[in-house]
């Protein structure tokens, strides 16, 4: 009897995560959808004019900005992060790794506002003096985001490289491959799903980051034509105007949130799919399933 009661109560509790997700979806859509219908979905997504005071709500520049800054962050963060993961997993010994990996993971805890601030006081002036332009730019945003996603990419990629069974490496070495060839042709390939998952997670973090981007990216409402142009991604648009927006303007910010939410959910579902695929291939190859 008692066992059943406990089980049922726990089931209710366990539904809290999916219920929260449902509530978030419901409220964001409830607030934002009416405005999208009012403006028209196509006009909302492809409009270039964002001028709440005259009722113009087009978010194309922000969609472009979000896509560009995320790609920029990946260009900077992914090669660096994966190289660092190879160093941690394949080149140095267990002892050094056990010090370096936690150190890098601890730094993942530095708040995004701090990264943004470092961007403002060091990176932005540097870009302004070296390349010209205002300094607050797509480039500055991409670099800061690229650094911010490093710990995620390094940590998960290192774990997936370490999960590749040693017999794989031994087989390659015994066939006469050098360590470098083993890493490129065997280990990295065997760990590819885990590495891909780390990249997708990093991508999610980059596209969703708000405060650091507001501080360094310049917030101008343009479709960027050069890395030195100031930009305003979806997240920044919401946070910048949420403080004072009312009426349709506020609803338009929730509508911006819907677009961001859809982007993120697509990434989430992809990431879940990829990591499932990873588990399957790992267990097929006899590897340790984490």
């Amino acid at each position, binding site marked *: 009897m008692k066992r059943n009661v*406990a089980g049922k109560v726990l089931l209710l509790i366990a539904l809290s995560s999916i219920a929260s997700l449902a509530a978030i979806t419901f*409220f964001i859509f409830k607030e934002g959808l009416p405005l999208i219908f009012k403006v028209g979905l196509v006009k909302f997504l492809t409009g270039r004019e964002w001028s709440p005071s005259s009722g113009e709500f087009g978010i194309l520049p922000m969609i472009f900005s979000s896509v560009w800054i995320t790609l920029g962050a990946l260009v900077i963060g992914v090669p660096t992060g994966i190289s660092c993961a190879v160093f941690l997993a394949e080149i140095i010994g267990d002892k050094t790794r056990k010090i370096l990996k936690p150190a890098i993971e601890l730094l993942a805890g530095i*708040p995004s506002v701090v990264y943004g601030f470092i961007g403002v006081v060091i990176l932005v002036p540097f870009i302004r003096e070296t390349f010209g332009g205002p300094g607050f730019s797509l480039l500055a945003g991409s670099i800061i985001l690229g650094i911010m996603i490093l710990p995620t990419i390094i940590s998960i990629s290192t774990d997936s490289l370490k999960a590749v069974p040693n017999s794989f490496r031994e087989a390659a070495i015994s066939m006469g491959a050098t360590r470098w060839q083993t890493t490129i042709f065997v280990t990295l390939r065997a760990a590819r799903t885990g590495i891909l998952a780390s990249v997708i997670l990093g991508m999610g973090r980059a596209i969703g980051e*708000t405060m650091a981007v507001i501080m360094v990216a310049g917030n101008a409402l343009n479709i960027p034509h050069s890395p030195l142009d100031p930009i305003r991604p979806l997240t920044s648009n919401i946070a910048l105007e*949420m403080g004072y927006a009312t009426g349709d303007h506020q609803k338009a910010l929730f509508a911006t949130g819907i677009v961001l939410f859809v982007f993120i959910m697509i990434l989430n579902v992809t990431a879940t799919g990829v990591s499932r695929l990873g588990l399957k291939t790992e267990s097929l190859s006899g590897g340790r399933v984490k």
Partner: protein
Amino acid sequence: MKFPRRNPVTTQRLADTYFSIMAVLVLFILLFILGFILVKGLPVLNSKFIFGLPREMGEAGGIFPTIVGTFLLPLVALVFAVPLGVGTAIYLTEYTRENRLTAIIRFGAECLAGIPSIIFGLFGFVLFVVVLKMGWSLLSGGLTLAVMILPTIIRTSEESIKAVPRHYREVAFSLGANKWQGITRVVLPSALPGIFTGVMLALGRSIGETAAVIFTAGSSLKMPASILDSVRTMSVHFYILAREGISLKNAYGTAALLVIIILVINTIAYYTMHKFLEKTHG
């Protein structure tokens, strides 16, 4: 088409050098950020700054109310998130097998973990601040953070409950304990250090959070007197000081203290997890 063949040993040396340079670069950047904030901020820290009340919007005086807000807000969040998260973990590990329902529960938690904080901010604003009429308050902000940290608590609790060896439960049952007694008196106490790690990680994340907090807890610089009062956390205070150019000096000070607090909390989390894994894996 022929590629010039390089000596494999040279390639190996080049590769090793490349990977080492990348790793040193990453470490340098991360340590530089940390060092920069500490070098600029530590000289600002003194008892007047830490325990003083802010004057002129934070341009002068201390930051004590924001320190109080920084700890109260995650505390409210944990009060809600820990029972829900640990309960979910117990259900997933002890009360069910993997089936469609657990897949849905896990999907919910994974998706929550991927949602950006600004979306939590929007959600918390409309549900807690507006619909439930809690206003910008400790309660609204705490509930918003609770939803945000729920996946962390679930994941770490589940992992630590799973790490408790099977025979612990068998011994409990063989002594006549029922399932619930086995869980509450044997499994949970053994998993406690792991659960504590999750709580610490969630605390660290909440303390560093800005976007979800600023639209739900507000940014009042007054000392909160009730759970329905608005509070300003150190992250929000730092953001406002830096962005509105109120005081660069106090911004550095706030940032330094913030970073120290988060590093201490994350180090405790890491250390506890390490000890716990050592113990359960023999």
